[in-house]
């Protein structure tokens, strides 16, 4: 009897199981440099000497000419909001008490960009094109993860 014809779905005999695996992801050759940079409070991008493009997040290879990127450049951690969203639901569909601001931030002279949390600003005030800066966690809290960046916030004029 098809499941959609049953008045009580539990009448259909079923059982439950899972695929019991975990994964350990190496950050890779380029990732080692990038994440060590974050621990030092630096944004490091990969520069292709062949076509002059600079990639953030960095890759070992240039997606354009497919050569080894070869050179590392420290990027000024100031960017611009390319687009953003205000997230109201968590992964289990619960409503968030405090909606989360998520932005795509682009950096001058770089291909790519970073997806990260926006902080120190109200949702109503966020605008596409707004200049922002990267806020790193205090050095003793950094562990070589993308979360070593606490969030990005509106660029403070100094």
């Amino acid at each position, binding site marked *: 009897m098809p499941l959609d014809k049953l008045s009580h779905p539990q009448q259909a005999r079923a059982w439950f*199981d899972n695929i019991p*695996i975990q*994964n350990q*992801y190496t950050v890779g050759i380029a990732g080692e440099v990038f994440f060590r940079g974050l621990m030092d409070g630096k944004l490091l991008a990969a520069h292709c000497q062949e076509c002059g493009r600079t990639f953030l997040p960095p890759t070992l290879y240039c997606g354009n000419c497919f050569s080894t990127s070869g050179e590392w450049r420290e990027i000024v951690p100031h960017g611009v909001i390319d687009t953003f969203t205000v997230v109201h639901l968590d992964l289990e569909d619960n409503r968030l008490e405090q909606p989360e601001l998520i932005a795509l931030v682009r950096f001058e002279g770089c291909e790519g960009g970073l997806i990260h949390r926006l902080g120190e600003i109200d949702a109503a005030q966020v605008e596409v094109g707004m200049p922002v800066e990267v806020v790193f966690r205090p050095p003793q809290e950094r562990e070589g993860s993308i979360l070593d960046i606490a969030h990005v916030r509106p660029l403070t004029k100094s």
Partner: protein
Amino acid sequence: MAFRRTGLRRVAVVGAGMTKFVRRAQETAQELAFHASRLALDSCGLRIQDIGAVCLGTAPDAFDGVHMNGEYLSDGAGAYGKPFMRAYVGGGTGVFSVIQGWYHVASGLFDAVLVVCEEKMSSCLPHPQAAFLTIFDHTTERPLKPNLLWIFALEMNRYMQKYGLSKKDIARVAVKNKRNAMDHPAAQLAAEITVEDVLNSEVLAWPVQRLDVSPTSDGAVAVILASEDAAKRITDKPVWIKSVGWCLDSAYWTNRDLSYPEYVERAARMAYEMAGIKEPRKEIHIVEPYDPFDYKELHHLEGLLLAPKGEAPRLLAEGVFDRDGDLPATPSGGLLGVGNPIAAAGLMKVAELFWQLRGEAGKRQVPGNPRTGLAQAWGDLMQVGTVAILGV
């Protein structure tokens, strides 16, 4: 046989490259794919801009731990901004991705195709085997908690029983392949071992013992396929893909003959017919059969009609399959010796034929100017056979 071969263009392999096969690579899966792809391009002086389309093979997403892993890998395989297709037929993927690349070119759609296979099994914990626990029927088999070794153990035992074979007859494959791998610069498990070592190794699921089995590995391999016109511009030593074949058996292993891989025979017959090969035993000069387990090489040699049923072990003992024998089998060192990053291992066999048929296999070179070679892989739910025949 029901396939058409009219209107197809000739396709050549013009370049190949591979990473070392290792237990644990620091590189990401994308970085492994990049290294192999770059080496293959450099081997024939091509730029990524010369490539019309990319075919990529990788086995279960669960190994790399990335769902849609083929698409994730695509940047590292140079597919950015190009037509891209992923092949996935489990262990059969390495040879199947070449078949897929072949019809991209044979069809007339593309003149140069990059074929890349990658596997990073070390990221999968506690063991990559766990990724396979759900391949079994979820109501009739999984409550028994089977793992992959059950299939191999039952198959190997059936094969031994049917032909009265001993463990010793089969262990010689592991000895041969690990020894052949001593000459492979990318090998993970090359070793001089004896039949006694195999027989004394840890029992996993009788009759399968530790040294009957290939390792888990990380690695990537790439080859470049080109149309006839393009191939002649790129190299003066093209290696032609003379034919391909593939075939699937029942999804239920209970419904297969476990002593003989019928689906491999069907795949081989398709390839032999397409290549006009009437007497495989005489016309194939080198064979790279899929060897994740020592008995599987013998099983596959029989399925490929390169040995009478049940007689591959006798031919092995006589030295027929040695590198300097009458029909060298797995001169690369195979999965047992070079390593088994699933999809990449199958493509490694095609790359080995490329090097062998061009006379570029170095210390592994098979003597006597071999002109025709066959590579085969096996996988899916242990029911697919994939075959490619290469020649100069």
